[in-house]
């Protein structure tokens, strides 16, 4: 299935007929199977699917962390497959912001040092005004000199979001950013991402299995067995939950038939 979420807006990131095959011979696993999808600028898109549906693999491929077996991945107009490791590294550093599920921060650095790490890796200084604005937005003014060990899980994720935003990347990719948080801390992080899109015009792509998290997005892409199964505009947690249940029924049915 080919999905073009909003043809009127240029895509921040795009996958064209992408396949990703793990293993060889009998143990071959098709994590992505001929996926074509674009993620328009200035939108918050969630990617959902059951475990093993290929949602994390899609994110990794879009970020240049994983190489595709077939097809092409674009960040803006840049085709990632033709880039060297050095160029990919620079691309991640300068054009993508990351938020992972856990272990987002370096334990030896303060919150502030973590936030400006991509810039200092590039040998640049962060724009101070923008830095202040981002820090204020994530509400960490009083915590900048603390080390990750001295912060709560929610605070740590907010530091990670700040780090992702401070470089004004073309796209922020979040991999289960609320997976390790309780619902209140999770809500704070999701609200932050929502604000980033609404107020800063940021593009956000988020992989999640939590219908509540998906409810913060502008749209939800559903993956199943490495293929795009559905797309939902203006999702609410309930609708997402229903849609996911349908997947479970299909999966259960397949299991009952012994496949």
């Amino acid at each position: 299935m080919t999905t073009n979420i909003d043809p009127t807006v240029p895509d921040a990131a795009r996958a064209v007929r992408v396949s990703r095959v793990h293993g060889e011979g009998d143990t071959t696993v098709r994590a992505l199977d001929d996926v074509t999808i674009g993620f328009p600028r200035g939108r918050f898109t969630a990617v959902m699917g059951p475990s093993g549906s290929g949602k994390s693999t899609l994110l990794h491929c879009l970020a240049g962390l994983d190489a595709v077996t077939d097809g092409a991945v674009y960040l803006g107009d840049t085709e990632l497959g033709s880039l060297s490791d050095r160029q990919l590294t620079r691309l991640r550093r300068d054009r993508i912001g990351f938020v992972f599920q856990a272990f987002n921060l370096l334990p030896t650095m303060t919150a502030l040092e973590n936030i400006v790490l991509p810039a200092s890796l590039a040998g640049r200084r962060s724009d101070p005004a923008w830095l202040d604005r981002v820090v204020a937005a994530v509400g960490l003014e009083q915590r900048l000199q603390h080390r990750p060990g001295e912060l709560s899980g929610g605070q740590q994720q907010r530091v990670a979001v700040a780090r992702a935003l401070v470089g004004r990347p073309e796209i922020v990719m979040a991999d289960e950013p609320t997976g390790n948080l309780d619902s209140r801390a999770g809500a704070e992080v999701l609200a932050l991402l929502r604000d980033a899109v609404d107020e800063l015009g940021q593009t956000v792509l988020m992989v999640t299995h939590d219908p509540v998290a998906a409810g913060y997005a502008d749209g939800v892409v559903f993956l199943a067995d490495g293929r795009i199964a559905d797309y939902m505009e203006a999702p609410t947690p309930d609708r997402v939950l229903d849609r996911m249940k349908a997947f479970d029924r299909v999966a259960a049915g397949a299991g009952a038939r012994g496949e």
Partner: protein
Amino acid sequence: MLIRLSLANLWARKRRLVGLSLAVLLGTAFLSGALVLADTMSSSIGGLIRDSGAGTDVVVRNATAVTDRPGSQRGGIDAALVDRVRAVPGVAAAEPVIQGYGQVVGKDGKALTGNGPRTAGNWVPDPALTPYRLATGRAPAKSDEVVIDRATAKQGHLVPGDRVTVLTPGPVPVTIVGVATFGDEDAFGGGSYTAFDLEGARRYVQRDPGKVGTIAVRAAAGTDQKELAGRIQRALPADTQALPGKAATGEAVDAVEDGFLKVFRTFLTVFAAIALVVAAFSINHTFSVVAAQRTREVALMRALGASRGQVLRQALIEALLIGVVASAAGLAAGLGLAAGLKELFATIGFTLPARGLVFKAATALTVLPVGILVTAFAALVPALRGSRVAPVTALRGAGAEQARLPRRRLVAGLALLAAGLGMGIVGGGMVGLAVAAPAVLAGVLLVAPAGIRAAGGPLTALLPRLRGAPGALARGNLLRSPRRTAGAATAMLLGITIVTVFAVFAASLKEGSGAETRKVVAGQLVIGGSSPAGWAGGGHSPELTRRTAQIPGVETVSGLRNATSLVDGQSRQMLAVDSARLDRLFNLDVTGGRVTALGPAGMAVSKSAAKDRGWVLGSTTEVTFPDGARQRFTVTGLYDRTAIVGDYLIDRTAWESHADAALDAATVLRLAPGVATGTVKAEVQRIAKDYGAPPVRDREGFVAARAEMLQTLVAVVYVLLALALLIALGGIANTLSLAAHERTRELGLLRAIGAARAQVRSALRWESTLVAVIGAAAGLVVGLFLGWVAIRAIGGANTGAALPFAIPSVQLAVLVVVGAVGGLVAGARPAARAARLPVLRSISAE
């Protein structure tokens, strides 16, 4: 069950297994190498000696031995005895053997010197009685024909037909007619051999037609060595001795074993011990790191019901398994190391007579238990600490290492440090050193983590500014666990401390000996006296000494001749000198009587030797010369300065009639007032050309040359200490790669958010460099202090001659740079590996 779990554990964590094994292996390999090298030398030298005496059934020799130093000669025996021995029933052949000093001069007029005795003698025609075999040419037939050993021939590019000069020690022009091998070797160890015919050897080497050195006897078939020796003995005069061949070679082998080899073995063992101690700290630290990494694992086992004892036992079983396997590997690696060391020594001018490699069971029986025990002990403390992990830690997630530093540790460390410093400064002496060294070291090790926490931040503050993000990362990792950083630097600290103490010691010794030599030598010129072999081996003809005395402007001259004899029955090194104007040649700081004009029965003795023996002016003592003659000497003078001249001085005339070899080890010249040293020096050099051109130096040149003599020894010691540093660096590399392994996710995250491979590499390399620099800098400070205490202790023990405290700043600067660069190199591999980690797998790593 535990053993199976231990095995499974080891196998599952191969990276750690390799890390731990490497730490043990490095330490044991050196011990094994040292033992193998010593055994190899022992067997090679023993083999050479046995080869040389293999066909000789009985040796007839002078009964008097003035020293049991290997290679030294006894007095000669009556040449007429040869016929008397030949007449004894059961003697198949008896050949006179002459051996003495003989130095071949190369075609360029320079003596062909080497790392062993320069001998000359007679060509023994009976192949059973000599180990030498003609390789090319023929045996000498005239008294000016010689056969030389193949090593010398190669060194001087000499072939039969060449005409050269042999100094015996007077110059003898000869024609080389043959080149011989010692068995199948080029020469006997590092020595050289020149064989005249019997006539030539008598004339030039023995210089007494009535005498020969020894008689080598071959027994008739079926005759017992011992029985024949007894039979020959009955035909000999009382001062002559017949010894069975086996006993003679045994004696020679024992002499080498007890002398040089014992020293060499002790020397190597000391360094092996140093290496092992450094390795033990390295092993201990590696185990600590691994124990910290395993905290959650252990906690889980405890939560599941494993007792503290079981956890401890499991850790110890793992340590033992590693100890056994790695020690065995170290044992094997030692073989290679021994071969490498041998080559390395040879390249810095310290050739060891060693062939093949000898591996004795005793080596395994030493290395294996030592390696296993050291491993077990090094693992004990981390294992104990590990077993105290609370089960709840498993559930809590983080908490690999406690970040807080116990105050107790700091207080104890500071107390030890203060006690050590105080004892070193106030206490002094050997006792002070013995207390100060361990106290200071232990104190520093205890205080180190707190020190790193307190001082590490400010000291590395510039790094992020200079090196950007990688610098900041390196700094953060360095400070994240001060205890671990201190642990990683410990081996380096120990290694550098030891090297620094030694460097200070060597520099002070050099300066002290230089100052003493400068004080004692009053003459302006010195000939010779600085060969690596020291007084015993080299020298020049007394004829040269006599001729230089004739040079206009020379006021007085004396040769210094080694006159080792028995003084009151004990072997003592004496010097025979021209004592008439000795006060003009040496400032001996005479404390009583006179040291000039000793005459035929006078002896000058150092104050300390006189005190030891209870002598005063006028005391008499009996001296037994190498030829067996005894004579009473009267102590006529006492002096204080013993540099160069030693403890006992007699006049040349009292010595000459009892010695076969007339060889001046050195000659000192005093010039008349107002005479230019340079002019006389040039003239002396011109004359010296006829005698193999021994070095002619002014006083400062002589001082420098004497200092050079220390240099080879110093170089050898540096090589051995460098190995200890290598072990320390290996430890740093090891823990760094363990750390990198532990931080896989961190590294993955870094790469994911845009750190280039080069930046990851750079951060880790900086980390290891900083660890090395911290260890090196601390070691330097501790080493300088302990070196200072040691120098003072030795100065105090040695009455009068206090050593100056000299800091070899260039060597020490090089040392720190080597340490830093070593840290960089040590970090290179782990850093490169970490940089190559696949990003995706790293972030999702457990």
